[in-house]
C-alpha cells in the first residue's frame, strides 16, 4: 500500500502545481513508482507543466462517474516508465466529483503506486475537500509573503482538524538577494508563525518558468538550484536526512545565484 500526499497552499499562484510535478518527478527519478493526481477540475495545469496535455483521453471525472476504468485514464510519462498522472477535467467544475469518489480513486491508486501526489486547487471549498479526502499526508506550500503565510496558516488549521497527518512546509520562491537585503520575510519568521516542520526551501529560479513552458519539470535539469531543492525534498519524503540548502549565508553560492539571474 502506497502513500498519498496532498500538495496544498490556500493561496493561488504560490507553486502548488510546480511543486507537485517536481516532487513527483524527483521521486520517480529516485526509482519510485509515482502517480500524480490533478484535482483542480476546471482549471487543470498539471498536465501542461508535465507536457502531457495532448495525451489526455479520459480524466478524473470520467473515472468517478464510471465512464472508464482507472487504468484507461492514467497517462504514462514521456520520460519515466514508473511515473503516471491522472488529469482533471477541464470542462466541469469542482462540484463534479465528491470527496468520497476522490477517496476511492486514491485508495485504488495506492494499491498500485508507492506514492500518490495530489495537486490541490487554491481555496478552501469543495476542491480542497476533494483533494484532501484521500490523502494520508500533506505538504503545505507557501512563499515568503504575508498573504501567502496567512492562507497557509488557515490551511494548516483545516488540515489539523481533518484526518491528514501533521503537514510539512515548503517555502517556495525565496529570492536570496531580497532576503539578504531584508526586503523579504525570513524563513525563520515564516516558521515562527506557522509552527510546523519544514521539509524544504526552494529558491526562486527562472529555469522553473522556462521548464513549465516547455512541459519538462525543472527537476530534470541538474543545473537549476530549484531542481536540487526539489530533489532534496523528495529524498526527505523517503526519510533521508538532507541538510537545508544554504540560501544566503555562503558568498560563493550567492555569486552563483547572481549569475543565474544574469546579474553576476
Amino acid at each position, binding site marked *: 500500500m502506497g502513500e498519498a500526499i496532498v500538495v496544498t497552499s490556500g493561496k493561488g499562484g504560490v507553486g502548488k502545481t510546480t511543486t507537485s510535478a517536481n516532487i513527483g518527478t524527483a521521486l520517480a527519478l529516485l526509482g519510485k513508482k509515482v502517480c500524480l493526481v490533478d484535482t483542480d477540475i476546471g482549471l487543470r495545469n498539471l498536465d501542461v507543466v508535465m507536457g502531457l496535455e495532448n495525451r489526455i483521453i479520459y480524466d478524473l471525472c470520467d473515472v468517478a462517474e464510471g465512464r472508464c476504468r482507472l487504468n484507461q485514464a492514467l497517462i504514462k510519462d514521456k520520460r519515466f516508465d514508473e511515473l503516471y498522472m491522472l488529469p482533471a477535467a477541464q470542462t466541469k467544475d469542482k462540484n463534479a466529483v465528491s470527496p468520497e469518489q476522490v477517496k476511492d480513486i486514491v485508495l485504488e491508486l495506492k494499491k498500485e503506486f508507492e506514492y500518490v501526489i495530489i495537486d490541490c486547487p487554491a481555496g478552501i471549498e469543495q476542491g480542497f475537500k476533494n483533494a484532501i479526502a484521500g490523502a494520508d499526508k500533506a505538504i503545505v506550500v507557501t512563499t515568503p509573503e*504575508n498573504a501567502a503565510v*496567512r*492562507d497557509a*496558516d*488557515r490551511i*494548516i*488549521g*483545516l488540515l*489539523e482538524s481533518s484526518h491528514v497527518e501533521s503537514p510539512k512546509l515548503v517555502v517556495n520562491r525565496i529570492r536570496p538577494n531580497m532576503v539578504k537585503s531584508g526586503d523579504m520575510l525570513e524563513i525563520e519568521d515564516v516558521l*515562527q*508563525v*506557522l*509552527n510546523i516542520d519544514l521539509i524544504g526551501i526552494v529558491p526562486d529560479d527562472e529555469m522553473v518558468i522556462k521548464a513549465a513552458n516547455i512541459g519538462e519539470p525543472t527537476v530534470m535539469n541538474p543545473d537549476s538550484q530549484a531542481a536540487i531543492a526539489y530533489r532534496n525534498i523528495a529524498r526527505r519524503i523517503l526519510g533521508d536526512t538532507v541538510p537545508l540548502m544554504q540560501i544566503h549565508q555562503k558568498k560563493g553560492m550567492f555569486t552563483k545565484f547572481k549569475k543565474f539571474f544574469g546579474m553576476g
Partner: protein
Amino acid sequence: MAVKSNHVTIKGIKDGLVFLLDDQCELEELLGELRYKLEHSHQNILTGPIIHVDVKLGSRQISEEEKQTILDILKQKGNLLIRNVESPPLASELVPEEKLALKTGMVRSGQVLHHDGDLLFLGDVNPGGTITCTGDIYILGALRGTAHAGVEGNEEAIIAASYFAPTQLRISEMISRPPDEWETRETVMEFAYLKDGSMEIDKISNISRLGRDFNVFKGV
C-alpha cells in the same frame, strides 16, 4: 467582662428569635459576645418556654467546626431550638466560575477560540485568528491575531500576552489597533486595559496598579 460593641443582635419575630451575627469582626470576639449575652445580660429573656431560633451569619465564611461551636453555645440554653442557620455558600462551591481555565494549542488564521470566564492560553494566536473571552485573556505565547476580552461588556477585563503584537484588540465595546511603532519596541510581556474609555498598554509588572482585586503579592 463588659461588652460594649454589638456584634450579636437578637431580634424577636412572630414565631421565635433571630440571631444576627456580625460578619466583619473576629470570630473569637463574636463567640465571646454570644456567650456573654446568653449567660449574663440576656439571661432572663432567654429562659422560659421553647423558642425557635434562626441564626444569620451574613457573608461570613465559616467551617463546619466553627458552625458547630456556635450551635453548641446556643444549645447550652435548653429552651432554644435551632431551626435554621443561614450562611453563604462554601468557598469551594463558588470557585468554579471564577477559576482561571487553562487551554493549550494554536489559534490559526480563520479559527476562533471562545471561553466563558478568564482564560490562560498556552500557545500562539496567529494573524487572522481570534480569541474571545467573557473575562480576562492571558496568553503564554505570541498574540499576533485578534483578542477580545470582556465580550459581554466587562470593561475591567484585560488582555495580556508574552509576545504582544496583536492585529487588533477589543475590550468590551472598545476596539483598538496597535500603532505601527509597536513593532520596534522591546519584547517584554504586556497587557491591555481600559482607562477612562480608552485602551492603554502597560508592562505586566504594573498590572497590580490597576486597582482591581488581583491577588497582589507584597512579600513577607
